[in-house]
């Protein structure tokens, strides 16, 4: 039987390991998950890991060292499909929020000085698709149970996973919340990928963008709207950058220059 099952590897690069943990937290479904596929490698869950050919590799975390670049390239070579798991793998995570290289180097020096790293050399944090081709993305900080199980099950049954292109606002309205932006609160719902269940706004807290930037969002209008609501330009940029990683660096270069 084992040969017929999909061979899966779950890997963690630089991140909080929250996405891998969430898979283990699917307690009710865990036996079904382990029965449905052949988990070859999953460091958080088991010790007898086999690093061979894979059907699917799920990769969490961003790339922050030269060793991780090698690991990632090796995973890509061995896996038919690679899935970016969570915010860090998808956009680079909070650790990638310093868009340009000089800024990163400056910060790095400030923290570590001129220490020569012997184990591996650190590099600026990047999402995994900076180094390898990625087939599917599961955003989230961390990913969400239902999103993961839906992806996993669709995949198992040969259906392509569906990618949500909606902002958080859609679910937020399903949950019948007042619009916080309308009330003058700095909420990033319209520019953030849906999937979290609008959990913060359900508790009357604004969206901080932790599911990462939505591809199709109208960030410029959001930026000027927040300015009109009285927020400082730097504050808006800081909030928008927090969970955007490297993906909307172009936006930050351009924004603010539209005005004549």
């Amino acid at each position, binding site marked *: 039987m084992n040969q017929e099952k999909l061979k899966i590897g779950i890997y963690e690069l630089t991140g909080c390991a929250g996405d891998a943990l969430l898979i283990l937290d699917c307690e009710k479904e865990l036996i079904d998950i382990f029965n449905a596929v052949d988990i070859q490698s999953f460091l958080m869950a088991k010790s007898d890991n086999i690093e061979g050919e894979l059907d699917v590799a799920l990769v969490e975390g961003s790339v922050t060292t030269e060793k991780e670049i090698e690991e990632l390239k090796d995973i890509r070579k061995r896996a038919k499909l690679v899935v970016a798991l969570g915010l860090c793998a998808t956009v680079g995570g909070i650790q990638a929020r310093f868009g340009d290289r000089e800024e990163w180097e400056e910060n790095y020096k400030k923290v570590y000085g001129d220490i020569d790293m012997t184990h591996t050399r650190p590099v600026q944090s990047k999402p995994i698709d900076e180094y390898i081709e990625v087939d599917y993305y599961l955003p989230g900080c961390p990913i969400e149970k239902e999103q993961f199980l*839906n992806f996993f099950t669709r995949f198992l049954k040969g259906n392509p996973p569906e990618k949500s292109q909606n902002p958080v606002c*859609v679910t937020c309205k*399903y949950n*019948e919340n007042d619009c916080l932006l309308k009330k003058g609160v700095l909420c990033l719902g319209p520019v953030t990928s849906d999937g979290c269940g609008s959990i913060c706004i359900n508790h009357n807290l604004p969206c901080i963008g932790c599911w990462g930037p939505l591809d199709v*969002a*109208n960030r410029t209008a959001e930026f000027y709207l927040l300015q009109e609501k009285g927020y400082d330009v730097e504050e808006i940029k800081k909030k928008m950058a927090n969970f955007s990683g490297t993906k909307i660096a172009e936006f930050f270069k351009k924004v603010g220059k539209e005005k004549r």
Partner: protein
Amino acid sequence: MRVIKLSKENLFPFLEVISEKTGLWAPVRKPNSGHVFKEIDDFAQIDLDYTRTILPPKKIFLPPSFNMFKASKNNYEEDFSHVSPKILFGIHPCDIHGLLIMDRFYSYVFDDPYYSKARDNTLILGHSCWPDENCLCKSTNTHIVEEGYDLFFTDLKDSYLVWIGSSKGDDLIRVKAELFDENIAEKDIQNFIQWREERDEAFQTEINFSAMPDLMELKYNDTLWEKLGDACLACGSCTNVCPTCNCYNVHDKPALGEDSSQIVRCWDACTLENYSEVAGGENFRKKRSDRLKLWYTHKLQAYISKYGKPSCVGCGRCIATCPVDINVKTVAHTLDGDKVDSFWNRFHEEVRK
């Protein structure tokens, strides 16, 4: 139709009796937020002093997301769990009109069982209201109701005049007829006339809806649409909160560990980018301006041309919801040649111009 009287202190005793075996839904204030229709377990939660709920009552008949059926290789199980008998109390005239428009979409030509079963199972107990600056229902002529309710309560300060609009409504009254007064005094009629006049004068916003189909046609290529598209956040909220927006999407949700799938239906919005995406990745309305034009064509032109009235019921939810002020009020007034104060106008003038 028959009108009777109910003194205010008899309202809760009446609701208590009729909701013994049937779920009662009524407006409730959400903490730190607006009002919502919610199933009531304590009458003290009911707050009739509201203008509009965040979501319209369409959510009761077709929830934002629900399972339609479970399908497996040899079986098919429909799921009508949202269709339990309900009494919807405190619904305003605009929302009753909203449901009458939904009826047209979902039951006139093709019957949608998920909608019509819920509709058949729900009693509508309307309630009068007082307009705020965003209420447009006098302009849409939906501030009064002649049909679409089982009972309708008009609040005349000390008592209610209760309109009985159906035989089911009449049955409800008979459950506890002694709470009601069949005799309506001349003074009650005078009070009602006065209430109606004052209420009609309280409207602060007027829109000339009958001019909209022509103006939409003439201004189809107006720069207005680009201005709106520039500022639109494409959040879909105007659509989700609209009592007459009815589009939906259907997803398969396969079960893990067994050979079956749930077929989930959820609200969709033509203002969202992926709404018009088809197989192969082609998207016919990739531009926000095109999507807004579609939305407003539907509300202000197509429906009026076909049915003689707008598919806007004047509830003001798009005004209360859109953070960039794209709503029926600013759009209709702009089409009518007025300059409106709105974020989208300022955004165009200060940033894009």
